[in-house]
């Protein structure tokens, strides 16, 4: 069959978010791939430069829906370090609890979506119904299911009452037992194994070379985890360990994510049980001294990096947000070449892309074939002639 360009995206049922793959396929085999992302670039970095430290947090939080707490924590942690501000221990514990709960619900969400990509809708329904327990806990603690608004420069905005702590502790064992059931399901459910094993293989050298981050890299044996390499909040004194795997394919990433799920449940239980007493925030000064910092954080999808530069005023001079999915695009494009057309959604879902974070376009190894891009006005004109012209009813 001659080379066929199969446009998967930007509005494609597999990816609930606007990414466009112009896949050049020969029959079912993929030869080349153009990735076209930036469909919801909102200029958050420019907008953040016009807001003071109190009003910038709701904006930074809205970079991404699923990892909103990650963005506010990494930003607040950076600003506090620039201000040499030591936030109370209880606030650090609460931040860790919310961060790990967010990791749990993000990984459960991913497990469901990955199963849906291969048509196994039952696991999608089950994982998402178990995820409700985590969402309810977060809603009780922070007042909202998506944007928790827990963070503030100088600490945490809401305290955890003993009832909330007990309600959360009661839900954890149920969740743990459900996750054990998923572990055993992923290990011996035939269609899941057949569709996950050996797909989108990424060797350790390739993962390092193409800069993969988070579970995608750890599944290929790359032993990087910011929570242990550059410890922040209370990860240094909470007993947990980094989950890595060796087989580097979608199956390996699933095992790493489920392993991390178990670790996160352990961390949340530890933090909830010995939550120290004390204040939950410190009055932060209005302005931050001149300086710059690279604040790193382990978001559910990988290593999130904020480069923050302040110039003594109460506004940030520059915040450069590099999201984990952006770092994973190079490696996913490498995995996709000469795989099956049917595996694109699974491989792409394996890096758990969060498009609203990354909003960047990457064009990977497209040769010099000239590609005409229709710009918006031409599209509008063509639309007008086509549908509203007189002879067409």
């Amino acid at each position, binding site marked *: 069959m001659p080379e066929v360009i199969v446009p998967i995206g930007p509005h494609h049922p597999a990816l609930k978010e606007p990414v466009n793959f112009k896949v050049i396929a020969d029959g079912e085999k993929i030869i080349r791939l153009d990735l076209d992302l930036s469909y919801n670039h909102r200029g958050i970095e420019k907008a953040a430069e016009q807001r003071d430290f109190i009003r910038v947090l709701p904006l930074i939080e809205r970079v991404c829906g699923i990892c909103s707490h990650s963005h506010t924590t990494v930003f607040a942690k950076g600003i506090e370090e620039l201000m040499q501000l030591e936030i109370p221990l209880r606030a650090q514990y609460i931040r860790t609890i919310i961060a790990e709960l967010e990791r749990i619900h993000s990984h459960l969400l991913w497990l469901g979506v990955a199963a849906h990509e291969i048509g196994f809708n039952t696991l999608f329904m089950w994982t998402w119904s178990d995820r409700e327990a985590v969402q309810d806990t977060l809603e009780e603690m922070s007042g909202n299911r998506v944007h928790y608004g827990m963070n503030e420069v100088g600490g945490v905005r809401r305290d955890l009452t003993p009832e909330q702590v007990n309600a959360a502790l009661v839900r954890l064992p149920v969740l743990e037992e459900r996750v054990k059931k998923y572990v055993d399901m992923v290990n011996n459910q035939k269609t899941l194994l057949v569709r996950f094993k050996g797909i989108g293989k990424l060797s350790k050298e390739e993962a390092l070379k193409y800069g993969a981050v988070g579970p995608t890299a750890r599944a290929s044996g790359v032993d990087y985890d910011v929570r242990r390499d*550059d410890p922040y909040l209370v990860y240094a004194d909470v007993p947990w360990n980094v989950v890595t795997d060796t087989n580097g394919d979608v199956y390996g990433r699933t095992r790493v994510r489920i392993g991390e799920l178990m670790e996160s449940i352990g961390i949340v239980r530890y933090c909830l049980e010995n939550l120290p007493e004390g204040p939950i925030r410190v009055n932060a000064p209005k302005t931050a001294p001149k300086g710059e*910092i*690279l604040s790193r954080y382990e978001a559910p999808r990988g290593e999130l990096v904020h480069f923050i530069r302040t110039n003594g005023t109460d506004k940030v001079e520059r915040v450069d947000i590099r999201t984990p999915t952006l770092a994973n695009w190079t490696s996913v494009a490498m995995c996709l070449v000469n795989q099956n057309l049917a595996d694109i959604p699974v491989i792409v879902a394996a890096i758990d892309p969060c498009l609203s974070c990354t909003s960047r376009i990457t064009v990977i190894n497209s040769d010099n074939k000239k590609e005409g891009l229709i710009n918006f006005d031409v599209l509008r004109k063509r639309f007008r002639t086509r549908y509203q012209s007189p002879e067409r009813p």
Partner: protein
Amino acid sequence: MIDPITLDFVREKIQDIGTAEQVRSNRIRITTTPGRIRDVIRSVQELLSCDRLLTISAADNGKTLELIYHLTGSHRMVVSIALELPRDAPQVPTTSDILPPAGIYERQIHDLFGILFQGRSDLKKIILNEDWPENEYPLRKDWAPDPGTFYGGIKGERV
């Protein structure tokens, strides 16, 4: 985990190429000139065993444009290489062949800051949509959004 590299170990490795200072317990910042960025990166990769590029961040401090390459390795230290570029014709040799992930970050910085990376074939638009006017770089300090070009006009006056 091999032992973290110390400041003078870094200084001794890169005496002629740039100056280094210890910014934080596990951060070392090297400042160098745009011309020598490629060999600084190569030396940081081999001598300081940094195998991963975290990100390339760009900033505009009013006078000049700055580029900072952040690398890390199994020693868990972050080595940042900073360089300054003139505002009018910022040029820097590309590093996407040595560090493949740099391809994305360079394209992004080119779109938002207008820094030209020499030696790259496909420097097409990466962030902004196709019909964004040429050489308008939104993240520069001197660029202000002009309401006339908003899609669908301004959404109601923000009081």
